[in-house]
């Protein structure tokens, strides 16, 4: 079946690299169409053919052998390029977000491109109490009216903050709507579907890459409650798709391309969190469908290259890859597992609440008039977010900074409100061994503000995720968890300080020792909430431990992650990404679902009893005209080929996309093929009689090994076969005779029906 796609492909893409750049790839004849599922087995066999051809040619000459080597190394070259570009883009995004977030509050006179922290970097006027103030940084009220403090200054700052936020988000949504509508949302549900074999043309294109990068910065800078991790995975996969075009090994084979995309997804998470191993595990657990061992090693390579590139750009000025990297080594105690498990329960409950709320809101957006005003919706949500966020210092700052502050342990050197503990002036302990202290008034004020911030974030994130702007949800979930964790941590710390003679504290907490680290509770809370929403397991723990740089906290993190997953699973089976896949009706056959019903293949196959009989082609009794009529009247993707309509003995299966160009080509090129010619699907058609027209031999496009199951095969086995082999369709036979056909869409609809969901919601093929 190889001939057609190669030949016509090169014909059409003849001229100009300029054209290759300017246009998205036009699907070639014989290639898959938009919104279709690929045939994994066919792609695999094509790749094996290609490889065999190269190996056999490499024995001919030195040049061929070099070409063979280059082919083998092409995978690594692609990984290197993906890592470089993903790291570069992540660095650009981090720097730009840093600057634009601070632009809402003021501007640096020493150079407008400096953010607040960078502006005051070289200043000698920073004091211990006011580390943020320096004369080069001016807030907008200072610039415009010359008044740094006071009620009018506050109101002016407020107004300008809201205006900047609105400008950024309006700009973002207009760019998305105008240039790349596929750039909105998180991207992970769609990438999961693409990696399972679905084709969405343009989703990983160049314009989507550009617009997603640019608007991600705008979205995060506008103060909306969203993160950049999910969109970074999309950006990295776009980079992967971009570099696949360099080698025909990947550009012509959709199955191989998805191996590259899996590795690119790992690189995306790696730069988002500075966690290469976590990235690979995330790609393995959450995003990829088939993950051969070769991909594991290559993904790790891509993730490492991306992390190194980001490190060399050094966006945060301290050689760290993430803003909230912390490193502490204070021990934790067994008795603290109780609050950790409570945090896990909170995480699970929040996850359930978020998933239900968000899906309900997205469904409303999909089905009602709300969905007709995307730009207005974005502006309204931004306005509400900005108006409520400004008064509270913990929501005014960017969410990453909030998480960083919450994760930070309070040594003697912190002067923030959260670290306003009552210090013993005669204390001379070194920095990292400060004992537990009583909380000062600043801490209590901080707790009130944090509680308000928590409620606000819980509510607003439900409405923000899924808007027509790039939006991720890792950072908001971690923020919610970190706030809750820190509050619990401070509570436990104060209880231990004031009541150290209680039974629960007596054994492990002596007065004057550093027992409780509220920062650790914040981390555990963040992990719990993230696990409750996404239902990640191993990858979550690894990402968190790579963030903290220590193996010591694996047990608390695992306890919280496991608890939150159990609690969340008790209320709903699926995580947020699978829920969005169901909502949009993507044809995603989840490998985590278990099919436990006792239906048989006959119950699901087509044609049903009320439907017209199966459209088949016969081996040697149909004319070209009949075949063309059949193609025109139906819209099936393929037709089984039987010996005769009476015997119904199956010979093979022929795909529509191979049949049409074959017939068209034959009509144009071969002499004597007319509408009355008989189409033969055999190797040796019978000899011509008299003046009958030339036969059309279509033996080459026939697939002689279509998958078949018998009618009494349980659906459990059928679902397993579809999942493990990546089939698109499967024929059903009884006593050797063709009975019907089962497509992936039928299987998905059946599963949805069995789960009491709407089977009509599976929209794609």
């Amino acid at each position, binding site marked *: 079946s190889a001939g057609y796609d190669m030949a016509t492909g090169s014909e059409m893409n003849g001229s100009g690299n300029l054209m290759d750049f300017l246009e998205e790839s036009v699907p070639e004849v014989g290639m898959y169409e938009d919104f279709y599922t690929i045939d994994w087995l066919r792609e695999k066999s094509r790749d094996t053919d290609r490889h065999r051809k190269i190996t056999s040619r490499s024995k001919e000459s030195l040049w061929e052998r070099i070409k063979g080597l280059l082919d083998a190394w092409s995978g690594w070259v692609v990984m290197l390029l993906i890592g470089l570009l993903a790291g570069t883009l992540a660095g650009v995004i981090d720097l730009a977000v840093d600057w634009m977030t601070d632009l809402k509050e003021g501007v640096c006179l020493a150079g407008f491109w400096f953010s607040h922290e960078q502006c005051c970097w070289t200043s000698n006027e920073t004091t211990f109490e006011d580390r943020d103030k320096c004369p080069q940084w001016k807030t907008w009220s200072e610039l415009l009216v010359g008044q740094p403090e006071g009620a009018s200054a506050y109101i002016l700052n407020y107004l300008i903050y809201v205006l900047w936020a609105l400008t950024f988000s309006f700009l973002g949504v207009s760019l998305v709507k105008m*240039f790349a509508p596929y750039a909105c949302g998180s991207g992970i549900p769609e990438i999961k579907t693409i990696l399972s074999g679905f084709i969405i043309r343009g989703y990983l294109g160049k314009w989507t890459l550009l617009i997603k990068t640019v608007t991600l910065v705008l979205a995060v800078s506008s103060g909306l409650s969203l993160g950049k991790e999910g969109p970074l995975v999309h950006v990295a996969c776009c980079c992967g798709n971009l570099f696949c075009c360099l080698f025909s090994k990947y550009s012509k084979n959709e199955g191989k391309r998805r191996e590259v995309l899996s590795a690119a997804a790992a690189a995306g998470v790696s730069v988002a969190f500075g966690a290469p191993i976590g990235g690979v595990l995330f790609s393995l657990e959450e995003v990829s469908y088939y993950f051969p061992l070769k991909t594991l090693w290559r993904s790790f390579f891509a993730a490492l290259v991306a992390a190194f590139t980001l490190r060399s750009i050094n966006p945060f000025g301290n050689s760290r890859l993430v803003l909230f990297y912390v490193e502490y080594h204070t021990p934790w105690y067994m008795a603290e597992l109780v609050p950790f498990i409570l945090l896990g329960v909170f995480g699970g409950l929040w996850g359930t609440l978020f998933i239900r709320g968000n899906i309900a809101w997205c469904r409303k957006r999909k089905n009602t008039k709300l969905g007709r005003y995307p730009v207005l919706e974005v502006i309204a949500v931004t306005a509400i977010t900005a108006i409520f966020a400004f008064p509270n210092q913990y929501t005014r700052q960017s969410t990453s900074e909030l998480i960083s502050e919450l994760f930070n342990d309070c040594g003697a050197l912190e002067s923030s409100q959260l670290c306003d503990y009552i210090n013993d002036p005669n204390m001379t302990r070194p920095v990292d061994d400060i004992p537990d202290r009583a909380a000062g008034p600043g801490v209590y004020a901080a707790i009130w503000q944090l509680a308000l911030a928590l409620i606000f974030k819980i509510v607003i994130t439900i409405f923000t995720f899924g808007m027509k702007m790039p939006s991720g949800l890792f950072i908001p979930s971690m923020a919610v968890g970190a706030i809750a964790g820190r509050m619990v941590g401070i509570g436990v710390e104060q209880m231990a300080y004031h009541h150290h003679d209680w039974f629960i504290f007596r054994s492990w907490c002596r007065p004057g020792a550093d027992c409780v680290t509220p920062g650790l509770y914040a981390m555990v809370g963040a992990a719990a909430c993230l696990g409750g929403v996404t239902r990640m397991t191993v990858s979550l723990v690894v990402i968190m431990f790579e963030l903290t740089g220590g193996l010591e906290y694996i047990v608390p993190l695992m306890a919280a992650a496991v608890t939150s997953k159990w609690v969340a699973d008790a209320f709903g089976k699926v995580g947020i990404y699978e829920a969005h896949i169901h909502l949009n009706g993507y044809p995603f056959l989840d490998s985590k679902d278990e099919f436990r019903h006792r239906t048989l293949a006959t119950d699901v196959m087509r044609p049903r009893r009320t439907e017209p009989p199966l459209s088949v082609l016969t081996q040697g009794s149909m004319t070209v005209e009949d075949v063309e009529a059949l193609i025109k009247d139906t819209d099936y993707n393929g037709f089984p080929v039987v010996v005769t309509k009476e015997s119904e003995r199956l010979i093979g299966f022929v795909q529509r996309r191979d049949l049409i160009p074959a017939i068209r080509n034959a009509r144009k090129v071969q002499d004597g093929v007319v509408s009355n010619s008989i189409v033969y699907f055999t190797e040796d058609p019978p000899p011509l009689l008299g003046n009958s027209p030339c036969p059309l031999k279509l033996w080459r496009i026939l697939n002689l090994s279509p998958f078949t199951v018998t009618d009494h095969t349980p659906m459990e086995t059928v679902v397993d076969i579809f999942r493990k082999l990546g089939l698109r369709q499967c024929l059903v036979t009884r006593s050797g005779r063709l009975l019907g056909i089962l497509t992936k869409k039928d299987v998905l609809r059946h599963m949805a029906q069995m789960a009491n969901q709407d089977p009509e919601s599976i929209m794609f093929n």
Partner: protein
Amino acid sequence: MAVGTVFMVLYLLVELAVSDSSKSSEDVRCKCICPPYRNLTGHIYNKNVSQKDCNCLHVVEPMPVPGRDVEAYCLLCECKYEERSTTTIKVTIIIYLTVVGALLVYMAFLMIVDPLIRKQDSYIQPLHNEEDTERLFCPGSLLAGGVGRMGPVGVQSPASDTRPFAPSHAQARANTVLERVEGAQQRWKRQVQEQRKTVFDRHKMLS
């Protein structure tokens, strides 16, 4: 694809060139934070020293405590070596603003100027080049396939052939770069329109 690689290579070269050159004195510092001690307030000390000299004794000047208390005081202080690259920040922000500006200009062009140009050309008859329609698919053809609609594929755009040549010129069609660019732009616009319909109007994808 080519432009992506070119952009990235250029950016990395700029970065390497910049980082190789001598670091400006502004970009490196050792920051020591010392908390309140006895009757002293907390203080932050910045000094431009190398990494091995980044400790309390070299940076904290003038030392606020007498000699015997220096060790106790320095135990409380925390010193960190930090470096940054101002040029990276400047280059990145300026590149980003340029890209956003270019996109805005293009958006304004597409929304305002383009319809005016297209209106002028609508007087001219579109010319269907026979050769080209053979290579591309006919609308509503056999390839319409399962979803029942044409993907963003190959319907010959009437507006891309805008010159009123006689049919004899059709064979020797001038393939100037401008014309091909325009053809590509039309195809891209149609693709974006399809995407917009899928996402914003029919809500078929991305809720």
